[in-house]
């Protein structure tokens, strides 16, 4: 088991290395003079020159790369031009908001997705199944920012039940936090919930056909126990594998949702950085978020090996 975990961890290293190379290369993709592009049209030549030196863009590329990795190894992800502080510090400040929102959305995703998937599978080919799958399809097809906008129009503008934006930290006022994050979390969760409902349904259908489920029924176990104890345990395996993908989708979606509901999280930080051409922030932030995701995926794989012994022997 430890060996599996170790092997999986090691395999993440080349991926992270290439991810960091791509992030580095990104800023060099800027057409023309990157320093001039970052400084903007109103900058004087002296300012551009200054910026070039600050960002180390006057050095040969090999040296820039060397400094880049030197920095990364010391936890230095660059410095935001807009905020005047380190990318890592800026990210850490905003991260709790995004993690809170994503966790809330993840809980909703699992609750809605898994339950409706199980119910649809148990009532296969009835109207319950069809309605559940129709709603899942709708959830997959409705863009999360459109759903967010619709909810703002309906619940905030017309009914006035929930605020249309803004953020209240959980530590300050848990009820306020719920009020400010419920709409964003729902709009964020629906896509993943739809995907998960479909995966759960087909996983469940496959398991229900297995011989051991028939055996469990034949020996007279109550249906509840057959479903919850025998079938669900194995139907959960494919669900665990997609959790990594779901978290990636949630973080991607959070970028848009945070911009929409003006939540001061990672996503908003990066969108603002993009719009104000704060490229060091974009580069460092992208690298940080991706590293986080790679680590999450490694953990999910290890978890997968833990709950499914077959994986361990491959």
């Amino acid at each position: 088991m430890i060996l599996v975990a170790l092997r999986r961890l090691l395999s993440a290293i080349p991926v992270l290395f290439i991810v960091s190379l791509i992030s580095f290369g990104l800023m060099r993709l800027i057409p023309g003079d990157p320093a001039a592009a970052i400084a903007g049209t109103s900058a004087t030549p002296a300012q551009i020159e200054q910026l070039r030196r600050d960002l180390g863009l006057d050095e040969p590329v090999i040296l820039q790369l060397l400094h880049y990795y030197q920095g990364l190894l010391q936890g230095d992800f660059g410095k935001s031009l807009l905020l005047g502080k380190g990318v890592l510090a800026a990210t850490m400040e905003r991260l709790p908001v995004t993690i809170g929102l994503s966790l809330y959305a993840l809980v909703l995703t699992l609750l809605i997705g898994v339950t409706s998937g199980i119910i649809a599978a148990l009532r296969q080919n009835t109207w319950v199944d069809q309605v559940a799958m129709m709603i899942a399809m709708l959830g997959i097809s409705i863009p999360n920012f459109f759903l967010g906008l619709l909810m703002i129009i309906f619940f905030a503008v017309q009914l006035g039940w929930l605020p249309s934006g803004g953020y209240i930290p959980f530590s300050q006022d848990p009820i306020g936090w719920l009020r400010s994050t419920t709409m964003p979390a729902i709009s964020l969760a629906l896509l993943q919930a739809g995907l998960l409902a479909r995966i759960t349904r087909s996983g469940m259908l496959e398991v229900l056909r297995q011989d051991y489920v028939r055996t469990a029924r034949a020996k007279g176990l109550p249906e509840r126990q057959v479903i919850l104890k025998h079938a669900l345990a194995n139907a959960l395996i494919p669900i665990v594998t997609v959790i990594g993908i779901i978290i990636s989708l949630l973080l991607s979606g959070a970028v848009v949702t945070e911009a929409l509901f003006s939540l001061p999280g990672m996503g908003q930080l990066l969108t603002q950085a993009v719009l104000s051409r704060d490229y060091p922030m974009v580069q460092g932030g992208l690298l940080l978020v991706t590293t986080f995701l790679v680590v999450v995926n490694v953990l999910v794989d290890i978890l997968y090996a833990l709950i499914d012994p077959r994986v361990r022997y491959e």
Partner: protein
Amino acid sequence: MSDAAASIDAEGIALKREHPARATIKRLFRHRLFMTGLVLFLIIAVTAILAPWITDVDPNRLSMRNKFKPPGEGWIFGTDSFGRSLWSRVVWGAQLSMLIGASVVALNAVFGILIGAAAGYFRRIDNLLMRINDALMAFPAILLAIAVTSVLGPSTFNVILALGIVYIPRTARIVRSSVIVLREMEFVQAAVAAGAGHWRILTRHILPNAMAPVIVQLSFLFAFAVLSEATLSFLGVGAVPPTPTWGNIMSEGRDFMREAPWIITIPGIALMITVMGLNFLGDGLRDVLDPRLRIQQ
């Protein structure tokens, strides 16, 4: 009487001799989900193609006198905060969405298949190609697209390029996994033994058999591309305004949600119809084209 018997007979023979591709197309046309998806998608696609003929007002013509006209008399979809015709803007936005979706699909079809086939067939470059692939797929899709478009500068072409970079690795991975399986099959081994060259084996024996999952993937990809483009332009990093895109129309509508909610809902519904149509289409294609899944059901 004898006529009827003959026609039944002729039909029986015709069915037996039917070309497999025709049989597949027939099955597709009988598939309810696929047909629903096709109709939804065609509504948007045909509207997009006919844009110059079915709109009479320039999508960017300002008319402050007519601002915030609700959908109805004179203005099918109403007007926005500058009195521009929302019908014109949404229809031209459809054209841009379709153009971007089709371009991203074309880029994926070419480079996804090329990279995937190379990685799956030539084991020596597999490792390197797949590590790069893994790295590109590790980035959250929208974030990478935003970063690339922001670096290259916002324009329609750069959006296509960015979405290509984001999605090609995903297509390549699907192609690769089919190619790896097919490469070991007896009929391919037979072709190798018969002395066929790499190119012939790939294009004649392997790729035609690897197409089903790719076609399914490309139809979903069209939906992702349209959705991502709308997201990018909603965030302000897509095609440059005043070029109408569904995303930037909705973004502009945010300031007038109380007095003119239709500025958001109309392009939003158009976007939803497109994505849903393509998702239905993809589901239908998967049912019909992927024999493995067909047996399961």
